[in-house]
């Protein structure tokens, strides 16, 4: 009797065991063009980041990264095969080649970047870990959580930060560890745990899934740095560049004021930055094996980073997350893309 998680793990381990060495250096770009679709690993349903809508189309900030890569490579943002992965499966799935991009609210850490054979391509959301508690508890700060039972999702950096935080503050806690975020919400609702902990953005998404969202509150404390970003396999630098610059194109697009609506008019813009980005001046896609209009395809079909943010997690969405540190560098945030030159 095995559950799905272990089947996936075993299958992936089997793939690593039996696959020939040659596939390790496979040309991901060529494979993707041949297949006509990007293999993209997403979450098992996290509203705002990656979740299917009521028509079954995947939507979210992380999904838009997959769509941007597909637009750049294939000229069609819809040419994506979404593979839903839980926290434990995700890296094995990427290592074994089941997915080519992992865009699944994954925190960039040393271990993950250096020992797993993976590369983070950038940060599409700066997050931090927070706590959600029931309002009835009458708690206003994380420092009052001594002795609490805390629901966490297995295989996340959250599990480590939590232990660090409680130890540093000389407090105790009971970790109640579940496989999926859905189960953690279930445990929180049933009162199995007092506190639900996760990245604050996820807490906002999970809170609206509660039966009574107003009965729960997110504590103001943020206990960790969680830079979330897309991940690719090591050893294929062309593919690494494509995923990295797809995100940069969305950020630069916002900086230069190119949106999905005005992208076509912008093609005739006098601004040299815009002309270079949209492929009107030189061909900056060539070095990645792409067409000159790669960034135009991203911006016209997916939109710029700001649009994606507002649509999926910002004030225009049920999550209502402030732009905060995720604003562009010239608007008081951290989001900064190198220039197209």
């Amino acid at each position: 009797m095995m559950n799905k998680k272990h089947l996936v793990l075993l299958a992936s381990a089997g793939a690593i065991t039996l696959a020939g060495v040659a596939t390790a250096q496979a040309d991901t770009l060529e494979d993707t063009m041949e297949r006509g679709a990007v293999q993209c690993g997403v979450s098992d349903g996290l509203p705002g980041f990656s979740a299917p809508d009521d028509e079954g189309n995947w939507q979210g900030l992380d999904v838009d990264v997959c769509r941007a890569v597909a637009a750049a490579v294939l000229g069609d943002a819809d040419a994506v095969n979404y593979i839903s992965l839980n926290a434990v499966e995700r890296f094995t799935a990427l290592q074994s080649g089941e997915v080519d991009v992992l865009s699944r609210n994954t925190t960039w850490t040393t271990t993950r970047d250096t020992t797993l054979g993976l590369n983070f391509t950038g940060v599409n959301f700066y997050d931090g870990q927070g706590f959600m508690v029931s309002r009835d508890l009458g708690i206003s700060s994380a420092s009052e959580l001594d002795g609490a039972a805390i629901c966490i999702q297995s295989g996340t950096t959250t599990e480590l930060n939590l232990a660090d935080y409680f130890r540093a503050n000389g407090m105790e806690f009971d970790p109640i560890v579940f496989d999926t975020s859905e189960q953690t919400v279930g445990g929180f609702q049933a009162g199995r745990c007092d506190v639900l902990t996760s990245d604050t953005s996820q807490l906002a998404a999970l809170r609206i899934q509660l039966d009574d969202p107003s009965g729960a509150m997110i504590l103001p404390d943020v206990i960790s740095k969680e830079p979330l970003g897309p991940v690719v396999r090591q050893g294929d630098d062309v593919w690494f560049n494509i995923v990295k610059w797809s995100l940069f194109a969305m950020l630069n697009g916002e900086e230069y004021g190119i949106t999905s609506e005005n992208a076509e008019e912008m093609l005739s813009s006098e601004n040299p930055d815009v002309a270079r980005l949209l492929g009107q001046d030189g061909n900056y896609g060539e070095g990645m094996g792409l067409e000159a209009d790669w960034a135009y395809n991203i911006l016209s079909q997916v939109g710029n980073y700001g649009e994606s943010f507002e649509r999926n997690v910002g004030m225009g969405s049920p999550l209502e997350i402030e732009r905060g540190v995720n604003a562009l560098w010239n608007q008081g945030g951290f989001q900064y893309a190198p220039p197209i030159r």
Partner: protein
Amino acid sequence: MSVSPNTRPAGHKPPFWRDRAKRALIFQLLLVAAVAAFLLYIVGNVQDNLSARGITTGFGFLGNTAGFGIVQSLIDYSSQSTYGRTFLVGLLNTLLVGGLGVLAATIIGFIVGIARLSPNWLLARLATAYIETFRNIPLLLQIFFWYFAVLRTLPSARDSLAFGEALFLNVRGLYLPQPLFESGFGLIPLTFLVAIVASIALVIWNKRRHEATGKRLPAYWISFLLIFGLPLLVLVATGVPVTWEMPELRGFNFRGGITVIPEFLALWLALSIYTASFIAEIVRSGIQAISHGQTEAAQALSLPRNLVLRLVVIPQALRVIIPPLTSQYLNLIKNSSLATAIGYPDLVSVFAGTTLNQTGQAIEVIAMTMAVYLTISLLVSMFMNWFNARVALVER
């Protein structure tokens, strides 16, 4: 012209491929070589692939600090412990639920199996209903039933169901008082051990004396008194050097005492009840396998009913019961890996779950986990085979 062995000229041996024994040897050598070559290929290929992808390999990660908490551990564990320690914690949690599950399943299984043969119509039908219900519902659903439908609906910590001032049951688990032993308590386990040794000696002596003289003492009753009475006497004599730590509601939760987490309760109940339904059938079939003539013959010797069971039926029935019982024990232990579905921190959840994900060492972790289940299963098999050999009928 066919040549028969008898007419073969002396000194002329047939070519080796005509010799059946040599041929068999060659084929076996070829097979071993093929398997070895395949394994070598796999190991080499894994190493090539992993290094080509820049994935760190080896078991060095076991010495690194784990950095995450585990809700239930039988040994000292903190987030400062190593990944190797998480392996031990997970292993012990698996053994705990497996061991207690085997115990409970055996007890329930024997009771229900015997009840099914009872001449009491109601009792027999109840046992049948039990077996047919629990045997035919998937185990995972039963675990979910106990966890989500039964234990999740218990009241919160503040409105716990209290049994006296010592026992509390709520959605966070079962809270029991914990005995704290003071100095001088060491005498009691010591007396207990002495009583057990004395009882064994008494039973052996009594058996020999019975065979030699036909006289015997009620040795089992005396042993029972020795094992339970003597330690109790010492306990009272030393002034009961035990205090009880009561669970108390402080802050969010009950503190102090022993906490049995609901994940454990749900898994243990589901595993025991499910496996017991199979064991009950095994027990019933074992008893029915003994021909009724044996019982009648024993009764004809005017043996009382309990002695008929103890001396004639059960020793022979055990012979039939034990081999399939072994399979059920193995199933129960392996099924305990379903723990991960409800978040009980067993080996699969802690080690093949969290540790695997934090370290990314998928091949090492999965291989270790599989090796553990294989080892536990082989050990249980070995023990049961030994036990089976002991109770097997000695044909004279």
